[in-house]
């Protein structure tokens, strides 16, 4: 069997009983054992759970059912709950905590036949752009083991890129699916806010967090998306509107499509080799029949400032629940207040502490209006700019990140790390569906080989169907993901 087949192909083979889900689960776990010592995508594998699901899938298929994800190996970012399985958010404060219930998005994929392979690494509580903020493990970029996979969903994208999972789930608050997908040369898709239930996703910034798929192809990402999207009574922010079938309605060209190129996102400041890749990507969109139109997003430059007030404010509130009383770490001290303080000091890493502090400050008496409310007003202006831009175009194209993956420890100053999300944050603040699709490669000095870049395509609210269609047309015409492959990974000798 071909472990590198798409989810669509694996499900077809399992449904046709050409291969069993048990065989897929067994082979994939053998591959993880062989490769993950070098990559470090997983914090924990769940071999027995995957096998139990595989047996269930095989029984259902034998009984005549056809399951859209029959036997498809699935990796889960470790901020999503799976009942009976440790869920850590890559934080010492949750190390060893076992989730008592399963996230809705995960449950829907398991019901569709997916096999839960394991839990993947992330920046602690999904706060970061490189996966370096994990307190529990180090994940390398499969394209160059000396570089970061991006973040915060670094483990999930690295698992897919290294062939250690067919599809994965990530979560995206300000770019945490799209930036790592670009860095690792895979497709990463953040749906419209409210499309996918957040029940069972451990909260970072509740008005921004959204679960999305990571896959090798747009078609696989679309399939996973449509299976997990839709209203969930357990998350009141999920919208009650039908999820259109996407995966069987993907287009092959861009005739009649208007693609917006953002005036403020000029490519002039990028490295020449990176700029060439994006100029070619825009030309390819045109060659496929799209009309390129210039659109203005005058407030996009304020995205990072807006985000780094709103997201930390929501984080400081959400993470107040980690007080050492009902679950997670507790460090006993003289009294209850000192116990809270000692627990949180020992349990959280530096980036989480920084964001809690900035959020607490922005929400504190005397500063609330100047920081938090002003940022919420800026958010209104950013969303309005996008609404205006989408009156002139059907989707917006821009880089997913300004550079390919960078080396470990290259960005030690927090603000320089925050700037990595320049192209992804504005869409998050406006709640828009947005994805990264591979668009080419560059080989900077010192790189082990070619490093992938991602083209970001973003659409109006709830326009997932059109957006995935455009991305599919681009992917099929350019086939960038097929042009290069990851270098051979060192074997299990010297594994972690």
């Amino acid at each position, binding site marked *: 069997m071909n472990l590198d087949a798409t989810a669509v192909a694996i499900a077809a083979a399992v449904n046709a009983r050409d291969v069993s889900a048990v065989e897929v689960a067994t082979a994939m776990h053998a591959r993880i054992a062989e490769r993950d010592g070098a990559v470090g995508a997983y914090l924990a594998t769940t071999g027995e759970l995957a096998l139990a699901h595989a047996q269930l899938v095989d029984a259902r298929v034998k009984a005549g059912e056809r399951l859209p994800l029959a036997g498809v190996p699935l990796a889960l970012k470790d901020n999503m709950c799976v009942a009976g399985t440790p869920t850590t958010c890559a934080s010492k404060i949750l190390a060893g905590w*076992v989730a*008592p*219930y399963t996230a809705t998005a995960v449950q829907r994929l398991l019901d569709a036949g997916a096999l839960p392979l394991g839990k993947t690494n992330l920046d602690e509580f999904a706060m970061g752009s490189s996966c370096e903020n994990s307190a529990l493990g180090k994940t390398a970029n499969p394209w160059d083991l000396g570089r970061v996979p991006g973040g915060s969903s670094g483990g999930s994208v690295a698992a897919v890129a290294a062939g250690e999972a067919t599809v994965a789930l990530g979560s995206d608050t300000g770019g945490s699916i799209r930036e790592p997908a670009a860095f690792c040369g895979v497709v990463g898709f953040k749906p419209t*806010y*409210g499309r996918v239930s957040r029940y069972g996703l451990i909260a970072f910034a509740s*008005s921004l967090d959204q679960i999305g798929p990571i896959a090798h192809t747009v078609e696989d990402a679309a399939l996973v998306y449509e299976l997990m999207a839709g209203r969930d009574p357990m998350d*009141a*922010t999920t*919208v009650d509107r039908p999820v259109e079938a996407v995966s069987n309605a993907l287009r092959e060209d861009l005739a009649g499509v208007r693609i917006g190129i953002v005036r403020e996102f000029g490519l002039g400041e990028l490295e020449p080799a990176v700029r060439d890749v994006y100029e070619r990507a825009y030309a390819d969109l045109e060659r496929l029949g799209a009309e390129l139109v210039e659109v203005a997003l005058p*407030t996009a430059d*304020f995205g990072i*400032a807006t985000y*780094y007030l709103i997201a930390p404010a929501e984080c*400081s509130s959400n993470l*107040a629940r980690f*007080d*050492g*009383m*009902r*679950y*997670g*770490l*507790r460090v*006993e001290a003289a*009294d*209850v*207040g*000192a*116990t*809270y*303080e*000692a627990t*949180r*000091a020992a349990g*959280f890493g530096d980036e989480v*502490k*920084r964001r*809690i*502090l*900035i959020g*607490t*400050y922005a929400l*504190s008496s005397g500063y609330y209006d100047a*920081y938090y409310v*002003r*940022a*919420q*007003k*800026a*958010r*209104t*202006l950013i*969303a309005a700019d996008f609404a205006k831009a989408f009156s002139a175009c059907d989707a917006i194209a821009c880089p997913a990140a300004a550079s390919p993956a960078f080396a470990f420890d290259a960005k030690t*100053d*927090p*603000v320089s790390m*925050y700037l990595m999300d320049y192209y992804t944050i504005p869409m998050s*603040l406006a*709640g828009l569906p947005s994805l990264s699709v591979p668009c080419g490669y560059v080989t900077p000095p010192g790189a082990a080989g070619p490093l992938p870049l991602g083209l970001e395509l973003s659409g109006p*609210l709830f326009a997932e169907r059109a957006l995935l269609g455009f991305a599919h047309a681009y992917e099929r015409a350019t086939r960038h993901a097929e042009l290069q492959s990851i270098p051979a990974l060192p074997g299990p000798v010297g594994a972690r």
Partner: protein
Amino acid sequence: MASGDIDVAYVAKLARLALTPAEVERFGAQLGALLDHVAVLERLPVADVAATAQVIPQTNVMRDDVPRPSLDRETVLQAAPKREGAYFRVPRIIGEDA
């Protein structure tokens, strides 16, 4: 929005975070740099703009007031850092002389 006035020790107290003096200094400098960056928002004309808490047009979402099973008590208590029978054991909250 002056950035020089962030009292990190006070904010840490509000956030229930114990910080070492070295952390107070380091986080203070880093938060100052971030506040310098977010000061660009002062350039936006926001006086007559409504605040956005979340972007999707949702108002109150109601459900029927029907009892339904909640999480199993024993499963939840197994995650407790300390328990006593069917209860979470927590530090004393009311003082001796309260």
